[in-house]
């Protein structure tokens, strides 16, 4: 049925352009209809995107599928080129899944300038879907930067008290990283032109460029810094708690669920295949694993003493992303697959946690843990949803959180047992930060009179949370369909990492000569 | 004869310019300015640009300078002025920079203009146009044919300037 509609040919374009259309529609419409319009647009996008699950066929190998390319800036060889592989497939689905829920979750939260807000949410969706489906480095970079703008305004306008500080910090910090990446991109492009004579930003073309180990190291550094800030990896993480605490609930949801994934996605998409020699260099691997493990343990400890529930969850994000990083740099199938699963699982569970904390905030206008207590008595459904989500977050087996962490740790342990043991201790600390918070908020005596007034979940909120919880459990019980779709692409990345050899001087020379010859012939 | 006239006009123009800059009184500056404009108009005539010389006198010296004068009088700046030339440091810097520009210009001109004069002799064409269409027609022809869009835009610009000037100068109600 999908092929009858030529689904493969238009779906990716639709996923990018429909939300953009929606953006304008929302801006055009009346203020009080904005939220419903935005919800409808994002739902349409989500429903359309579901078909990707079947449209993407892992049997065809791990390369890009559903590709299409139009020349954009022909002089520079920039193409508007889209495509999906097993890695980006789930990131796109995660984005289209999260956006409508985040929009639905902001119905009560966003009171002022609704039109602008919902338009920005849709614009954000354009950006993230674009990032994950671009197969042209230039296009990727454009979308990568595009996501900054809506998020900057979402935090800066609808945020909490220190919103401006947080928004600027978020923007400058991440932009700073990506500018270094831009330098790297241009360098690769220039090398491609010089060595191969191709003026192209297409991933497939850039992968052919024989870069020397030194070059790879520098480029790796430039790209890695950009993505490490985005992820964020340990010493670059301080923008995240600030941004999360100040951001409005839907902003936090999208930030945690999708934007952070752009960083780790970049690791898998660029760092490993583009600079394999650097990525598998023992020093680099050691560094990344160390930072990842520090992130896991350090963030867990810092999270445990946070007085603000939202900040706590923000720090847990750092810990989870630490798992992803070590999974990726385990450089084996289990680790990579595990890392990708943690990304998916973290997207859903942390998104849900932020939504839940947002719901608490709407009811009590505070997020300080000590202000709560005994909420389970007056809001049992809310408490149930929260406890389930928290358990997923700490990786209870049978939920999505476990599968990812298990594979990640298994992968790390395979190649680096010592690191594996340290990282596995993260499962203890996950309980150490999460359970006290759950207890202080939902259990204990219902003492404060304000807490007595807290309402339970409304029907709208049930509609938001139910699919998320269902998905967390379904993925936990039966992750194989996901793993099956990711595996060929993951294998391809790994093959590239391990097969790559440093180009000899002779090779570069011969390539260059060939290029010169072809150029001469053409002229 | 034209050479002598040129040097007279040039001397007056430079003298006027210096006067503009050094006069304490704005009115004096203005009058020096008029002298400069008038002598420049004379040089225009020597360069066979009769129409421009005419509107230089009419529009520039006549209208714009009077506008300045009105403003000076309106603001009551005619007397009770204070010394407003900057101090030594500003003077030195100003002289250094302007001297630099002057030096550079001189350096450029030091190469001579003989090449230009021989290679690009458009004077005959202009003379022919002047003979054929008269002083006004010679300049009006390109103005209303090749440059008509720019011309119209200039009109629009003037309109906008008038509106803007009124809006700015009007007393806030």
């Amino acid at each position, binding site marked *: 049925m999908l092929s009858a509609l030529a689904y493969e040919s238009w779906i990716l374009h639709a996923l990018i352009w429909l939300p953009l259309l929606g953006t304008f529609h929302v801006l055009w419409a009346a203020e009080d209809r904005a939220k419903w319009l935005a919800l409808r647009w994002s739902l349409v996008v989500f429903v359309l995107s579901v078909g990707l699950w079947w449209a993407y066929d892992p049997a065809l190998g791990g390369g890009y599928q559903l590709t299409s390319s139009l020349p954009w800036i022909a002089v520079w060889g920039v193409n508007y080129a889209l495509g999906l592989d097993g890695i980006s497939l789930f990131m796109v689905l995660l984005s289209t899944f999260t956006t409508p829920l985040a929009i639905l979750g902001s119905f009560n939260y966003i009171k002022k300038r609704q039109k602008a807000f919902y338009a920005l949410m849709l614009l954000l969706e354009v950006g993230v879907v674009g990032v994950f489906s671009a197969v042209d480095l230039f296009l990727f970079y454009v979308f990568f930067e595009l996501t900054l703008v809506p998020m900057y305004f979402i935090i800066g306008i609808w945020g909490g008290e220190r919103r401006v500080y947080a928004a600027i910090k978020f923007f400058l910090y991440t932009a700073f990283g990506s500018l270094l990446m831009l330098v790297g991109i241009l360098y690769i492009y220039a090398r491609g032109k010089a060595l191969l004579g191709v003026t192209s930003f297409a991933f497939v073309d850039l992968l052919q460029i024989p870069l020397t180990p030194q070059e790879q190291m520098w480029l790796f550094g430039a790209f890695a810094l950009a993505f490490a800030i985005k992820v964020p990896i340990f010493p670059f993480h301080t923008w995240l708690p600030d941004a999360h605490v100040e951001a409005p609930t839907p902003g936090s949801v999208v930030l945690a669920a999708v934007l952070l994934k752009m960083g780790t996605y970049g690791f898998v998409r660029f760092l490993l295949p583009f600079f394999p020699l650097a990525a598998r260099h023992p020093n680099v691997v050691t560094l990344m694993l160390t930072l990842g493990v520090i992130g896991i343990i350090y963030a867990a400890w810092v999270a445990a003493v946070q007085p603000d529930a939202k900040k706590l969850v923000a720090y847990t994000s750092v810990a989870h992303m630490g798992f992803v990083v070590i999974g990726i740099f385990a450089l084996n199938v289990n680790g990579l697959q595990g890392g990708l699963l943690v990304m998916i699982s973290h997207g859903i569970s942390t998104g849900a946690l932020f939504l839940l904390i947002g719901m608490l905030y709407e009811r009590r206008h505070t997020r300080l843990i000590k202000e709560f207590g005994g909420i389970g008595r007056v809001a049992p459904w809310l408490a149930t949803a929260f406890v389930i989500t928290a358990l997923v977050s700490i990786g209870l087996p049978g939920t999505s959180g476990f599968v990812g962490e298990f594979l990640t740790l298994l992968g790390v342990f395979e190649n680096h047992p010592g690191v594996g043991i340290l990282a596995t201790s993260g499962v203890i600390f996950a309980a150490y930060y999460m359970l006290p918070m759950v207890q202080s908020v939902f259990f204990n005596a219902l003492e404060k009179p304000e807490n007595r007034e807290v309402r339970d979940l409304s029907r709208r909120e049930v509609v938001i949370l139910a699919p998320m919880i269902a998905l967390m459990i379904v993925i936990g019980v039966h992750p194989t369909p996901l793993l099956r779709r990711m595996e060929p692409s993951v294998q391809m990345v790994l093959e590239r990492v391990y097969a790559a050899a440093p180009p000899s001087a002779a090779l570069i020379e011969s390539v260059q000569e060939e290029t010169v010859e072809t150029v001469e012939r053409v002229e | 004869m034209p050479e002598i006239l040129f040097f007279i006009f*040039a001397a007056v123009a430079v003298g006027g*310019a210096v006067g503009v800059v050094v006069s304490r009184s704005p009115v004096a500056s203005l009058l020096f300015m008029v002298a400069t404009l008038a002598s420049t108009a004379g040089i225009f005539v020597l360069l066979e640009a009769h129409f421009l010389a005419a509107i230089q006198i009419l529009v520039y010296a006549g209208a714009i300078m009077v506008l300045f004068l009105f403003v000076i009088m309106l*603001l009551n700046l005619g007397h009770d002025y204070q010394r407003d030339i*900057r101090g030594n440091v500003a003077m030195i810097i100003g002289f250094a920079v302007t*001297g630099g520009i002057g030096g550079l210009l001189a350096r450029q001109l030091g190469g001579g203009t003989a090449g230009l004069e021989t290679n690009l002799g458009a004077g005959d064409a202009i003379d022919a146009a002047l003979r054929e269409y008269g002083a006004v027609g010679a*300049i009006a022809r390109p103005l209303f044919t090749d440059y008509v869009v720019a011309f119209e835009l200039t009109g629009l610009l003037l309109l906008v300037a008038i509106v803007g*000037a009124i809006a700015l100068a009007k*007393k806030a109600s």
Partner: protein
Amino acid sequence: MLAESLVLAGLIFVIGTLGVIVRRNAVIMFLCIELQLNAVNLTFVAFSRYVGIEGQVFVFFVMAVAAAEAAVGLAIIISIFRHYETVNVDSFTRLKW
């Protein structure tokens, strides 16, 4: 006569520039700007003898722009004067960040 005209124009331009830098009176700064414009007009006219009538056409446009500029500029000066009771530009330092 080209070379002489150009020297003259350069001289007037430099004097005008110096005026803009050293004078504090806004009206006189304006006059100095007019001086600079005039110098440029002179070069246009001088070159037009060798390049074509377009030089003179350009002068025409410059004059129109100068007129517009003078009108608006003087209006601004009047407007400022109403606030500050002076045309000394040292008093107008609000134009930053």
